[in-house]
């Protein structure tokens, strides 16, 4: 047995808790999960059935743990883990599963196939077989956390420029983007890029919120690697920042995996040792509208709008009604995709797939069911509250000629706030121009 295989097997053993053993044991191989998977829908073949995918890990598990399989390997097709098997497992877990949990929801036994795919990802990461780019991105974030002073000055300069834009857009000379403000109520954690800072800044200022901007980004590539150690180090930057500033809550930008990890995983990684709560920006938007803290025009968006449920936000995160509440307050023609909510189809960009250029073709092909869904709504605007979903739907838009515009929910809310000027460099600006060009505004 090579060292790589030894490490991979040890990692599997270390993860073997009650839920994982259950997932490995419970499947009856009934095949009912087939259509639940967008890979199967796009290309119906046995290899794309979630149960078949999981079976590749089960065969290794059985070899290690099942009495009958050790006696008669052929009876259960059990096999010893070797290099080609590990390569195959890695390929499956990183390129043929977005960890969307749609198969789990559709399984009569509730088998958690993504849990097994995560176990494989962890095995691959520990043994050095995981995609290099994900490892590099996670490690870069960890390094950034060790010495933020290296880029902080530049970041603050950019924020100062953004503040000018903010004042220009809102017409409010007092509008600001506070950074590292001690005692603020909210620590808002954006993604990399002004598009996830400026629109929320508009909203926070309009709501007269006591907030501060994080100097770190919310995304966490350690999560995609299923490497709790790395993921925890990435998350620690923000947990420490929140503790240092004494904030009451962390608000996560429109990002599926970041929300799911900070809301549902981080409390477990840190054994619940913090006093702040975690919310998504979507929940905050819904609250502001409900409480009248921001004023929105109920007919601000005349185009047909549809909403894509990010798997991490909806099925894995429980944020199902909040975005719909917001959309129904601002969009006159809101159309649901079918199926939606907990049964929504994955767009194909989750699980870190968007970052893996080597699997781009496969990712686009697997996104076809989502593209068809979007087409069937007849909507012109697709709202996605997750950056990876937006990138994927953008690619689907181009590849399948959907002729739609993809936008974040916050951008649309800002548009509905009817500010003196539109947001720069976003779809919102384009839409604003569109309105001026003759698309009827109410």
């Amino acid at each position: 047995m090579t060292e790589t295989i030894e490490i991979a097997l040890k990692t599997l053993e270390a993860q073997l808790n009650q839920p994982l053993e259950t997932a490995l044991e419970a499947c009856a191989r009934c095949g009912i999960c087939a259509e639940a998977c967008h890979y199967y829908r796009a290309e119906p073949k046995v290899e794309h059935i979630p149960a078949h995918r999981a079976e590749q890990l089960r065969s290794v598990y059985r070899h290690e743990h099942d009495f009958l399989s050790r006696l008669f390997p052929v009876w259960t097709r059990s096999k010893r883990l070797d290099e080609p098997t590990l390569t195959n497992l890695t390929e499956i877990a990183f390129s043929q599963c977005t960890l969307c949990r749609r198969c789990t929801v559709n399984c009569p036994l509730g088998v958690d196939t993504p849990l097994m795919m995560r176990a494989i990802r962890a095995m691959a990461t520990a043994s050095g077989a995981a995609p290099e780019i994900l490892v590099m991105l996670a490690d870069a974030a960890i390094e950034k956390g060790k010495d933020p002073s290296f880029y902080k000055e530049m970041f603050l300069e950019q924020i100062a420029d953004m503040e000018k834009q903010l004042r220009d857009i809102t017409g409010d000379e007092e509008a600001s983007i506070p950074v590292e403000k001690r005692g603020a109520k909210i620590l808002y954690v954006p993604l990399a890029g002004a598009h996830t800072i400026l629109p929320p800044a508009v909203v926070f200022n309009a709501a007269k919120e006591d907030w501060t901007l994080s100097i770190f980004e919310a995304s966490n590539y350690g999560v995609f690697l299923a490497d709790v150690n790395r993921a925890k180090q990435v998350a620690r930057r923000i947990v420490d920042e929140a503790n240092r500033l004494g904030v009451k809550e962390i608000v996560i930008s429109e990002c599926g995996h970041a929300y799911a990890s900070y809301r549902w995983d981080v409390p477990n990684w840190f054994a619940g040792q913090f006093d702040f709560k975690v919310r998504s920006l979507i929940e905050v938007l819904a609250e502001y509208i409900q409480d009248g803290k921001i004023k929105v025009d109920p007919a601000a968006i005349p185009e047909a709008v549809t909403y894509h449920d990010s798997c991490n936000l909806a099925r894995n995160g429980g944020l199902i009604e909040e975005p719909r509440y917001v959309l129904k307050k601002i969009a006159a023609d809101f159309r649901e995709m079918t199926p939606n909510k907990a049964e929504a189809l994955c767009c194909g960009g989750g699980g870190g797939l968007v970052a893996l250029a080597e699997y781009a073709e496969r990712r686009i092909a697997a996104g076809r069911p989502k593209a068809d869904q979007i087409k069937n709504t007849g909507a012109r605007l697709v709202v996605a509250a997750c950056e990876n979903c937006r990138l994927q739907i953008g690619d689907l838009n181009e590849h399948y000629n959907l002729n739609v515009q993809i936008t974040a929910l916050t951008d649309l809310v800002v548009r509905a706030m009817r500010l003196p000027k539109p947001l720069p460099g976003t779809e919102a600006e384009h839409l604003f121009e569109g309105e001026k060009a003759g698309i009827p505004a109410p």
Partner: protein
Amino acid sequence: MLIFQLLALTGLSMGLFGIYRRYAQTKRRLLPTDKSPVKGNISHGITYAFTTGMMPWAKESTRIHMIAYLRGIGFHIGIFTAIGAVILSPFWGFLPPLLSRISVWILTLGAILGAAGGLMRIVEHNLRGLSLPDDHFAVWLTTLFIALTGLGLVKEAFLVPMYIVAAVTFVYIPLGKIRHCLYFFFSRMFFGKFFGRRAVFPHGISYREAVK
């Protein structure tokens, strides 16, 4: 006859012991404690997982494969009826005739549905690709078990083969794929806890409930 009854009883004891060992082995493993603040309702999630969440209309998959799902349900009702019938076999003479007749009908239907499942595993492309020798053996063994129990209820001549096949079936339960009968409970429990905590299931949680 007593010898064969004892054989079935031994098989049942071995099967139960094997299942208990499996249960104990799994329970010995770590059960992660979830410290994230609950959004939904865990007990509602678990209740959903074992009740309405199992209804044929509750999932897209079972709506698409309604017949296959109902076939499976019928087959499993047949299995549990057969197990109950074999355990009660020394007292069959005391059973009301109507109950015997109903049992025979359930077992007949269960055996037919089991055989259909066995054939589907051979004929249907996806199922053939997914199936292991263990799956084929398990479905035909349990089908034979159901059929012989039904026949045993009708004709005494089938009692000996019924007890022999029952013994083999009971012993095989913890060894092969049939042990999913144990993990079903674990799996649905984890399902209910996970999705209940996150307010994903049961369906129909309103925005006001969601933002509480």
